[in-house]
């Protein structure tokens, strides 16, 4: 029974939503509208659940002193500081339980939550993303080697797109006469992105779309049950 009820709910909801897609009239339209509202409420709660789970998982790692457990203390402390700052003094336009913290705002220039967000979180986040540039550069240096026909094609396409997507492309071939403008690097780059890339991406999208339909049907019909947990 513990497994049958969720399976029945999944089947009924899945079938109703499929019907609602093709028959957007009563009662399917109304039901799907109502289910959408339920989903939004559940999605809101899922965020709280995610936060509680983050706390639990990190606490567990610290308690059992798992590898690099010291880092998890940092996560929990940072998490708690942000949450408490938000609860106590609120954010930019919203007061917290202690009001707007005028004295703190005078001293810091911003509310504690906004101050940490603007001066710590934003910069740390941007740094993490920026580091990718160095690793991508290193990966490109190692991977783009002209070994085979396929790798030659990849290498040529990569260089043309890289040049075409910067000002260098315009400088290098900007002088070409109108009759040879099709060789202008930004145009070649645009062509590669518009035709070969789009063709490949569409093939991937169609494959992924069919895969999603297949797995959705498996879930609706109760063949795929891993989402229920257990074996």
């Amino acid at each position, binding site marked *: 029974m513990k497994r049958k009820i969720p399976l029945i709910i999944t089947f009924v909801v899945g079938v109703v939503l499929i019907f609602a897609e093709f028959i957007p009239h009563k009662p399917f339209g109304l039901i799907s*509208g109502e289910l959408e509202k339920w989903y939004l409420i559940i999605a809101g709660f899922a*965020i709280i659940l995610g936060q509680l789970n983050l706390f639990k998982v990190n606490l567990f790692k610290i308690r059992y002193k798992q590898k690099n457990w010291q880092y998890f203390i940092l996560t929990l402390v940072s998490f708690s500081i942000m949450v408490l700052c938000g609860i106590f003094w609120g954010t930019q336009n919203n007061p917290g339980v202690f009001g707007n913290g005028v004295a703190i705002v005078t001293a810091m220039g911003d509310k504690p939550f906004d101050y940490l967000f603007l001066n710590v979180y934003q910069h740390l986040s*941007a740094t993490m993303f920026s580091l990718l540039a160095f690793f991508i550069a290193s990966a490109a*240096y190692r991977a783009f080697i002209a*070994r085979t026909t396929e790798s030659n094609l990849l290498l040529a396409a990569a260089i043309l797109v890289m*040049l075409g997507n*910067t*000002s260098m492309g315009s400088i290098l071939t900007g002088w070409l006469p109108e009759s040879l403008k099709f060789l202008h690097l*930004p145009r070649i780059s645009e062509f590669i992105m*518009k035709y070969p890339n789009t063709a490949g991406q569409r093939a991937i999208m169609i494959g992924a779309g069919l895969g999603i339909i297949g797995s959705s049907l498996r879930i609706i019909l109760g063949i795929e049950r891993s989402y229920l947990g257990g074996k």
Partner: protein
Amino acid sequence: MATVKRKQLDRRWLFLFLFVGVALPLIFVIGLPIETSENARMVYDLVETTPPGSKVILSFDYDPGSKPELHPMATAVMKHCFDRDIKVIVTALWPMGVQMAEEIFSDIHDEYPNVKYGRDYVNLGFKAGGIVTIQSMGKQFREVFPEDMNGTSIDELPIMDGMKNFDNLSFVCSFSAGDPGIKQWVQVTHDKFNRPVTGGVTGVSAPAILPYVNAQQQLIGLLAGLKAAAEYELLSKSPGTATSGMDAQSIAHLIIIIFIVIGNINFWRDKKAEKRGE
């Protein structure tokens, strides 16, 4: 396939060159030429041809991690909307998107003293749920967003007068760093409700989104990465951080290409040496 053991150049050299190559042009702006692409022009034309007084949604679906790429284009599009007297409704499918929009609005507000919150601009905040949120917005906008981010009822905001669903919008523009984002806006707003969708994405995610710029106009143009942001700044004649950032990006790309060439020369040299039996 022959296996050739290459003597790799220490990658720290690449890191050093890249660091210098990015930092110097940011400090000393070179002003390399920028050419506009068809996709950027399509986005520009969409905003340019939208009648003044129309309502549009700018969805901030990114966080500070993608800020260097997406913030300049979002700023340029928002400025262009205000220049054209287009009313901007801000939403966010990413929690941090709310602050990103607020930051832009407070940065540019001095340039547009006539733009009034609640009348010409509103930030409705973040709503969880991704594609389902968009679907609900299309049917019952006021139920999904009964209040703005400050808790003010949308009934008290003049900009929201008569706003029931996507029929009351001229277009949706999503600045997207991933999922949920522009793809979901296309799949629902254009494909289901037949409203124009445009937007901007990070350079790395552009190849996956470009197929939506097609004859069916699922997407009307696309701003792909910092280059497109610089192009938009050029088109709207308001140079900003993207224009200056393009110098750094161009030099960085050039350095990577030079290192790729060095890597290939090393490879071929080693391969030749191996053939000779050295």
